[in-house]
């Protein structure tokens, strides 16, 4: 607690380093346990495996293993999940380089140069460079996390319910605007998530909402059951529609060596620049790793030296995309931890895990639980170091995993979904919820509705409602309270601008769709 007092009480500008060191030392104490260390390392292995498997990825890894993690001590649990996030963000590059199939969308840009490098007989080098860039990018993102999150939390400690209300709306709007696809469908999905979060006992009036007389619904839907259903069950149904279920992928063994570290460090300017881009995009809710990896690739290509042939197996291309998408993880944890506003669906799940473990991310967590915050900083930094070690040494294992046919994977994942969801509260009702949301997930996927806003809406829902009602309770002028306070008024303006952007993008999309349909109709008539 002495650490807590110093962490919260010290003025940030003169003693910023001391505050950060306080967090790190408090975190080191809890991190240096065999369980936390072991699970962080295990998380990296699991993350690399799920990242390498096309169709899974870090989000699915976190979702599938969340039920296992929430029974563990907080820092060990978060270490496991954050390490899956870190490992999964890098793992997609392995299948991108070897199979020309990105394991995750994050690794899509790695295809441009990773696969051509493999075709030139340098698959091991390409994987080694991808892993080293990911680890160094992740560490640089970690430095930003460690320095910026406490500052942002300190600033946010002056926030009152009106600011939090506007922040929650901003988080949802930003994710819908930036994540692409139909804006209206994104908003519908997010609003559906907000509604799901209202099921259960109202924390203000203690009235029961949408429980239909069922005691199972008194605490609402368990977020893990909902998310496993929405993502994992619907993904397995999508996988079942493919035809290569018995096929054993033809993958050649790759063994990256330690020399790939020096190969990567030759591109240090690219590495630092791409990590900075990744961290920046990570900190913006909704932007995420895909945008950051494509942007950093474009910037690296524009800044390439004459000899570097991007798109034909340039090492710099792999360095740019992989360092960017892993540094995004550090960036995305900044608003997640300091404001309680998740940067993307994976960080929303981490936020959900923290809530289940009994911690409310935001300034209060920095003040009351510096050991947990510091522990999260430590596990994130350690994850990236473990990534370098495990990634380079155990790549042949991940290559072997790529050879497992889907006929074994699909029932195994379904089984993991059901046991994991059952283990939450030994409840068959949770399994039924999982299946029901699996069907909703299939419908949403088929109708091209994004699923991430549902989860983010579900997590932001209670924050939004509680702060909206608190704002109205303390206000003497009703909704004008949101404009009376400078920070809240600024956030209102940002939200209005985001709304204008949404309307503009929707109109633009309708016009292009209508033009496309007209052209199609005309060509058919001809």
């Amino acid at each position, binding site marked *: 607690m002495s650490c807590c007092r110093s962490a919260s009480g010290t003025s940030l500008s003169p003693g910023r380093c001391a505050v950060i060191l306080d967090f790190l030392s408090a975190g080191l104490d809890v991190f240096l346990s065999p369980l936390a260390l072991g699970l962080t390392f295990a998380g990296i292995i699991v993350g690399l495996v799920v990242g390498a498997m096309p169709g899974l990825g870090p989000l699915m890894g976190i979702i599938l293993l969340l039920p296992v993690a929430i029974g563990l001590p907080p820092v060990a649990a978060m270490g496991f999940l954050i390490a899956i996030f870190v490992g999964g963000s890098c793992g997609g590059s392995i299948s991108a380089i070897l199979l020309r199939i990105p394991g995750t969308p994050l690794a899509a840009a790695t295809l441009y140069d990773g696969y051509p490098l493999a075709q030139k007989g340098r698959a091991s080098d390409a994987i080694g460079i991808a892993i080293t860039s990911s680890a160094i990018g992740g560490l640089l993102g970690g430095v930003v996390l460690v320095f910026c999150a406490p500052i942002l939390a300190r600033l946010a400690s002056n926030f009152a319910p009106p600011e939090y209300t506007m922040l929650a709306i901003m988080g949802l709007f930003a994710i819908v605007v930036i994540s692409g696809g139909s804006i209206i469908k994104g908003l*519908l999905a997010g609003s559906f998530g907000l509604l799901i979060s209202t099921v259960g006992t109202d924390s203000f009036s203690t009235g029961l909402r949408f429980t239909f007389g069922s005691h199972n619904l008194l605490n609402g839907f368990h977020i893990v059951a909902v998310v496993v259903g929405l993502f994992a069950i619907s993904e397995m149904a999508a996988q079942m*529609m493919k035809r290569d279920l018995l096929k054993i992928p033809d993958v050649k063994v790759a063994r990256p060596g330690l020399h790939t570290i020096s190969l990567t460090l030759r591109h240090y300017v690219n590495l630092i620049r791409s990590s900075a881009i990744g961290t920046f995009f990570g900190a913006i809710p909704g932007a995420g790793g895909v945008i950051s990896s494509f942007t950093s690739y474009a910037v690296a290509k524009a800044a390439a030296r004459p000899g570097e042939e991007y798109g034909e197996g340039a090492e710099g291309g792999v360095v740019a995309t992989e360092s960017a998408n892993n540094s995004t993880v550090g960036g995305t944890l900044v608003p997640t931890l300091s404001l309680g506003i998740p940067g993307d669906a994976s960080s929303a799940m981490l936020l959900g895990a923290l809530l289940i473990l009994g911690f409310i991310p935001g300034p209060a967590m920095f003040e009351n639980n510096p050991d947990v915050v510091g522990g999260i900083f430590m596990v994130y930094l350690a994850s990236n170091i473990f990534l370098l070690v495990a990634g380079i040494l155990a790549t042949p294992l991940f290559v072997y995993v790529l050879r497992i046919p889907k006929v074994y994977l699909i029932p195994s994942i379904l089984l993991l979904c059901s046991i994991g969801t059952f283990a939450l509260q030994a409840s*068959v009702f949770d399994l039924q919820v999982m299946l029901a949301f699996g069907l909703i997930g299939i419908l949403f996927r088929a109708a091209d509705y994004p699923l991430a806003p549902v989860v983010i809406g579900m997590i932001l829902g209670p924050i939004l409602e509680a702060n*909206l009602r608190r704002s109205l309770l303390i206000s003497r002028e009703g909704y004008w309270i949101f404009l009376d306070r400078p920070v809240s008024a600024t956030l209102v303006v940002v939200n209005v601008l985001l709304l204008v952007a949404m309307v503009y993008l929707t109109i633009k999309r309708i016009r292009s769709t209508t033009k496309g349909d007209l052209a199609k109709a005309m060509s058919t008539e001809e």
Partner: protein
Amino acid sequence: MASSRTLNLIALGFLFAVIVIVFWQIETDFKEQGIASGGPYDDASLYPRAIAIFIGVLLVFQLVIESFRGRTTTLTEVIQASDFGRAGMMLAVFAVYLMVLTTIGYHLATAPMICAIMWICGMRNLPKLAISSVAIATSFAFVFEAFLNVVLPLGIWNVFIPW
């Protein structure tokens, strides 16, 4: 097979049903409990009602967009009915598994479920099917029961493995 427009309309219908449920509950259950009106503290309907109205407005916009859109490519051009059938059968097997899980227990229900899904995937080698389904079911049970202390459903016959 359904076109993308039909699927969009089904999704819109689902969301419309959700807002109907919200207003129906506010008018009935919320009013009975006295939480459908009052100030921000007592009015538990304020927030869900606002979101339901927002969804309703978005539904109207989406319907307008759908009416502007032409009939687009049918999904059958991309995915065959048999592929949909596989996914449907998997979901049916999984639903049956979840229904019988507590009655006959994890150890008796899981291996047949895995076996059935592998069969749907196209595996026809019976010894391989039997061995792999039992191996997967047992290894998951070992991890969860022995390491994570999870008590898996025992069923009416109390079937368990003393690890």
